[in-house]
């Protein structure tokens, strides 16, 4: 495809600048986002075991509920009957009491002790998975939501511009460069090929992420503007009124019966729980679960209204049964969350997300590489200050995010026994390591800091499965949930050699790679030794 040279030149400038501005924040968003693909398993892995007795069978849910309501009448306002209790929802009956903000709740679970008395526990859902998710959503910024979210939106717009400008630059040489990977003396060519390989084929994935993020950042503002400009009297949301009881003294059907009717109406829909809200004298019920044949707009479930007196499910909020507009919107959400196709797609998204993080990383490497001051006959020149600064910043921010997340995850199983404010501790650990890593990268210089931080990442990541192992032996209050939680530990274990291998390559490049580079050993201002400059050493640049 032919594009005029001056257009290419303009879009090259655009691409470079939006890339430099947004690349590192996008790295954090993608690395933390890749981990967030398994937010629910991570939350279960991180939640300490409940002290409640084993849940009574579903058939006794109403008995338990009556016992709860007798002692805690406020529970009637907002409660759940759980069909399949899990580590993070370890009770048959759970109720929510409002917290500080609209979306915050304190959850309590109830069960019967062996002697038949009522047991109540404040649920201790682990906050660490939420922290990683928040890092992802707010591109790693430690600001309150109201400040970080518009910045995230701006980053998303820059990201969209980076994608289109990158594509425009790539199009003229598409036939020659698509899927190419030329390893040789030309290191800039190599990084360019890597950058293209990571970005071009997965372009649809990236376009989806950029556009959905613009909406996630600005949807309130978009609605406000449309309410003023497009619609007659504000956005005309249609409110649904819950069906009233058929007779004044009618009671909701028991959960067992609701479950049977749900299976009959929605075969293939795996029910997680029934939730009930009391508002203005009306009982509003909904059913939550998942049909893996369809993607969902929530990350891990679909939810719709349920008539608690007849068991009738309102299907129009269920994927696969929505109207075309809702189906389209549901698709936008599902494409961002990877909430379709079950766990295999979550793994695909995890890998695509990590590839995305590398895309932004290699973008910065390319910037540094194309500003390299080449060696001349009279010795090795000093590299530019901007290249050194960006090198340190790239290493510090990216690896700081990696070590910070590993450290805060490794602390998960030790904190609950020792401290009260778990969320603050997890956040503190992350940002302490992140800030320290960035500072370290500037003090030590990019190459040495990269090697050291990668080794630290390996060590901290190894501590994740080790603390689960401590839990198996019951050391220091750590715990281990048998079963699927192992996958988290095994994944962390698999990441350890990866960090070490990259550290090894980085160390080798520092020794035998080009001396005229910010990646060379800092002390090397003397002329190069003649050996050690073959194609193999070029590969490690």
């Amino acid at each position, binding site marked *: 495809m032919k594009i005029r040279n001056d257009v290419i030149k303009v879009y090259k400038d655009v691409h470079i600048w939006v890339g430099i501005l947004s690349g590192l924040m996008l790295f954090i968003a993608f690395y933390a986002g890749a981990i967030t693909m398994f937010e629910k398993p991570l939350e279960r892995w991180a939640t300490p075991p409940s002290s409640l007795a084993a849940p009574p069978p579903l058939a006794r849910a109403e008995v338990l509920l009556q016992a709860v309501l007798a002692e805690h009448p406020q529970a009637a306002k907002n409660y759940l009957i759980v069909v399949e209790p899990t580590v993070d929802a370890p009770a048959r009956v759970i109720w929510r009491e409002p917290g500080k903000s609209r979306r915050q709740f304190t959850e309590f679970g109830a069960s019967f002790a062996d002697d038949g008395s009522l047991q109540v526990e404040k649920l201790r859902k682990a906050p660490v998975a939420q922290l990683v998710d928040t890092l992802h959503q707010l591109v790693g910024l430690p600001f309150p939501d109201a400040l970080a979210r518009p910045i995230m939106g701006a980053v998303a717009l820059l990201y969209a511009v980076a994608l289109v400008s990158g594509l425009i630059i790539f199009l003229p040489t598409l036939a*020659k*460069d*698509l*899927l*190419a*990977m030329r*390893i040789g003396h030309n290191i800039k060519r190599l990084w360019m*090929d890597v950058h293209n*390989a*990571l970005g071009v*084929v*997965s372009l*649809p*994935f990236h376009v989806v992420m950029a556009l959905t993020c613009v909406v996630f950042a600005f949807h309130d503002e978009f609605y406000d503007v449309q309410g003023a400009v497009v619609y007659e009297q504000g956005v005309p949301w249609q409110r649904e009124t819950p069906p009233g009881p058929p007779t004044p003294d009618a009671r909701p059907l028991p959960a067992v019966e609701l479950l049977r009717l749900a299976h009959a109406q929605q075969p293939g829909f795996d029910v997680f729980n029934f939730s009930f809200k009391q508002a203005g004298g009306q009982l509003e019920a909904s059913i939550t679960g998942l049909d*893996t*044949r*369809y*993607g969902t707009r929530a990350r891990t479930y679909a939810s719709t209204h349920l008539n608690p007196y007849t068991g009738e499910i309102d299907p129009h909020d269920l*994927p*696969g049964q929505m109207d075309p507009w809702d*189906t389209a919107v*549901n*698709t936008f959400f*599902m*494409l961002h969350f*990877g909430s*379709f*196709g*079950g766990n*295999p*797609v979550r793994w*695909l*998204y995890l*890998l*695509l997300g990590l*590839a995305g993080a590398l895309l932004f990383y290699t973008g910065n490497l390319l910037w540094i590489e194309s500003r390299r001051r080449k060696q001349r006959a009279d010795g090795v020149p000093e590299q530019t200050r901007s290249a050194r600064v960006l090198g340190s910043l790239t290493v510090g921010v990216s690896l700081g995010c990696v070590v910070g997340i590993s450290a805060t995850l490794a602390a998960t199983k030790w904190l609950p026994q020792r401290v009260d404010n778990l969320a603050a501790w997890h956040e503190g650990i992350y940002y302490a390591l992140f800030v320290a890593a960035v500072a370290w990268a500037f003090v030590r210089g990019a190459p040495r800091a990269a090697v050291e931080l990668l080794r630290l990442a390996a060590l901290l990541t190894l501590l994740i499965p080790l603390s689960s192992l401590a839990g198996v032996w019951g050391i220091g209050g750590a715990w281990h949930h048998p079963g699927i939680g192992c996958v988290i530990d095994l994944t962390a274990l698999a990441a350890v050699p990866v960090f070490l291998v990259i550290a090894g390559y980085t160390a080798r490049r520092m020794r035998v790679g080009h001396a005229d580079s910010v990646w060379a050993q800092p002390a090397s201002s003397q002329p190069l030794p003649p050996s050690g400059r073959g194609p*193999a050493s070029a*590969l490690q640049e």
Partner: protein
Amino acid sequence: MNPWLYTLAALAGIVGAWLLYLAVPQQQWLAAPRRPARGLAWSGAALALLALLLLLTMMGAMAAVATWLSLLMLVGTLAPFLGAWRAHRRRRPA
């Protein structure tokens, strides 16, 4: 969803995308690339299409297309790295 059918669809998608990679002149997996590559391209496209059809039989249309595209994108992203790795080993036999 039938896990066997899902696996079959995934395999068809992976092999299809891989054949499409081999059909591109820039591929480095094969030392002596098959030319003309039309046969590779057509069989790759046919297998990829088969994967899509299999996915459509077991999921909603949106979910099937999205799953299919995610798989093709990931294989297409990894392929050049695997090709370059093999070419590198070929050049310097261990």
